[in-house]
Structure formats: structure tokens, C-alpha cells
């Protein structure tokens, strides 16, 4: 865990702390923070600053008396049971197990030995687990928006560098890349995008609508 060299950029940690990061990226941030003390400290520092800003806000002049009475009356009622939470399992930190609802990933083939499990997908973006056999490449592609990729097992490398367990690659619209899994263990990563990827080769482009990449 100590050799993480590619971290979540601070502006994204701040966006997570303030709640303004889209859901797909929030899962990557929560998963990386679960593996990385440096980013956990940065997140807690951002929340610290959020608290300092909260202190300085002009109090709203609304009458809170009734709300206080209602809240005090509820203090002795035991809180509703929290929804079931799932802890870390194997290579998956708790936030990913939570997204998997505690079950192992159900892999779907994407071609070329690559498999995926979509965890969440809506109009704002999507987040998925990718399984890439050792030495295999994800087809050359560009991005319409931002793509965050967190390595959970094995490693991959591309034009910008190499990424091991815990590392996050941040790819934006300027980057065209061909991520290639390292030798050894298959590479399993968590990948989030806020827009569809642009594949350059013909076949993956045809597959795109089917596989929701």
C-alpha cells in the first residue's frame, strides 16, 4: 500500500468533499481513499476547511424553535437500522463491495479476453470493473470527458506511465491512449467516465452501444 504513486488530484478530492463530484467518480474516490492514507488525510483536511467555511456562513434567520423541539423529541427514538453494509473482500475495498451489493462481480465478455461488470450507469456517467488478461490491451481510445481508472489487481501501462495496485490514472479529453495490462496477474481495475469513450478502431465502435462503454 505504500507504493501508490498516482493519486486522486486534490481538486477532485475537494469536489468529493463538497458533494459536487458525479456519482461514478465518487465511487473511485471512496475506493482509492480506502486504500491510500495520503488521500484520506487530504480528504479530511478538505472537510476541515469545509467546516471552517460553514462556521463563517451568515446564519439563516429562519425560526428554528419548532425544528429543535421536533429533533429533541426524536433523540430517544433508536435510529433506523442503517442499510446493510458490506466490508472489504479480497481485492475489493468496502465501497466497491457496497456497489456490488456484497456479491462477486458477474463478468461479461467484451472481446479479446477483456471482461467487464457495470456497477452503475446513467446519463451522467458510468462506473465499471474491467478485467484485462496479462499482456492484453484495451483498444486505442480517446475520451469525451474525464476518465478515472483505479488499479485493484495487477498493473497496466500506457503512453503516460505505469500503474500498479492503488494507483489512479486521470485521463481527460486530451489523452488518446492504449492501456496494456502488465505480465503476471490479470489486471482488474475500477473505471469511471462522465462521457462515452471514443474508440478509434472500427469493431469496438460497433460494439459501443451494446456494451455501454
Amino acid at each position: 500500500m505504500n507504493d501508490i504513486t498516482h493519486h486522486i488530484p486534490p481538486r477532485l478530492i475537494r469536489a468529493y468533499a463538497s458533494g459536487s463530484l458525479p456519482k461514478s467518480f465518487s465511487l473511485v474516490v471512496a475506493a482509492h481513499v480506502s486504500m491510500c492514507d495520503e488521500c484520506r488525510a487530504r480528504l479530511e483536511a478538505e472537510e476541515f476547511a469545509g467546516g471552517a467555511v460553514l462556521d463563517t456562513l451568515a446564519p439563516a434567520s429562519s425560526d428554528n424553535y419548532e425544528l429543535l423541539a421536533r429533533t429533541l423529541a426524536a433523540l430517544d427514538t433508536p435510529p433506523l437500522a442503517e442499510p446493510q453494509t458490506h466490508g472489504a473482500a479480497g481485492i475489493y475495498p468496502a465501497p466497491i463491495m457496497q456497489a456490488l451489493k456484497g456479491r462477486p462481480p458477474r463478468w461479461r465478455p467484451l472481446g479479446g479476453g477483456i471482461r467487464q461488470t457495470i456497477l452503475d450507469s446513467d446519463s451522467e456517467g458510468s462506473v465499471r470493473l474491467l478485467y484485462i488478461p496479462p499482456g492484453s490491451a484495451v483498444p486505442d481510445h480517446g475520451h469525451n470527458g474525464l476518465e478515472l481508472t483505479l488499479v485493484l489487481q495487477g498493473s497496466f501501462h500506457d503512453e503516460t506511465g505505469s500503474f500498479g495496485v492503488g494507483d489512479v490514472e486521470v485521463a481527460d479529453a486530451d489523452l488518446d491512449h492504449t492501456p496494456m495490462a502488465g505480465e503476471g496477474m490479470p489486471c482488474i481495475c475500477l473505471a469511471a467516465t462522465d462521457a462515452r469513450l471514443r474508440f478509434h478502431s472500427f469493431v469496438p465502435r460497433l460494439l459501443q452501444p451494446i456494451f455501454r462503454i
Partner: protein
Amino acid sequence: MDTEAESRLSDQTIWLIAVRDQRDRASFVRLFEFYAPRLRSMLARSNCTGAAADDIIQDAMLKVWHKAEQFDPGRATASAWVYRIARNCHIDVIRRTSRPIPEALKVEEPPDHDAASQITLNQEAQKLRQALDSLSADQREVIVQAYMGDLSHSEISDNTGLPLGTIKSRIRLALEKLRHEMKDLRSQ
């Protein structure tokens, strides 16, 4: 500001510790009276007002009461802790689903009586507050927007095995960095 003032915990943190350790209702009322109007301002920035805001404030303050035993003044101020809880409550309401949150560190010691880290953290709190106060009105608005962001719009777009002490010193380092970034903003 004298050293004694800098090393004193904030009133809010003292009240929260009284809620945590003595289940003290009078202190809870003080926390409510301090935070409810500020949370209302925070929520209003995301166009959340009236009964919807009431529900989130009540939910957040009840979580403060029920989860108080998790509060560690060596890692967070009361305000940082309430900020996080209220944000999570608000986002869960917007998305109608629980927000992904990081796995908790396995607490290796009960969160208390680490006076040294409480004091250093509190000194950092004072310095951060001074850095905030020294910004121009425009610069401050940038910071306020970054932390109190308009959620309704922004929506479009295993235990690490390290002892808690390591996290605490890293939080201090991260806070120093953050404060210097704020200073850089001022000199622009």
C-alpha cells in the same frame, strides 16, 4: 491571538465532546442552535429550503447525537464533522441512494485523550480561519462556492494497517498544504 486561545478547543468541539461522553442534552441544544441556521444557509445555496431543508437538518443533527461516539477531536473539528455528516445526508436525499463513502480506518485506540493532537489540530483550525478571514470578498466567495457548492447544478456535470497517529500527522501536513494554497490565492 495568544497561544492560550490557539490551544483552546472551539466551543462547538467542547459541546460535541460533552454529547459524546455525557450524552449532555444542553450541549446538544447549543450545537443545534449554532449549526441549524448555518446548515440552512448551506442548503439554501443548493436551492434546498423549507420543509426539505428542515428534514435534512433534523436528520443530520440526529446523526450527530447517535454517532457522537465516533467523533475524534484529534482528527476533526466539530464543524468538519458536522459538515461531512450534513453533506452525506443531503446527497443521499438527492440521489435517493447511499453515497459511496470510504472504508473506516480500524480504530486502534478509543478516540479520546490524545491532547497533543487535539491541540495541534486546533491551532491549524485557527490558522485556517485566519487565512480565510484574510481573503478579499471575491476570493472568499470562490472558496465558499468550492465548499458549499450548488449541488443541484453540479450534479450534471481494508484497513491500511497504519496506526492512527500516522493519519493524524498526515492530516496536519495536508492542512498546511491547503492553507498555503489559500495564501497563494490571496497573492494572485
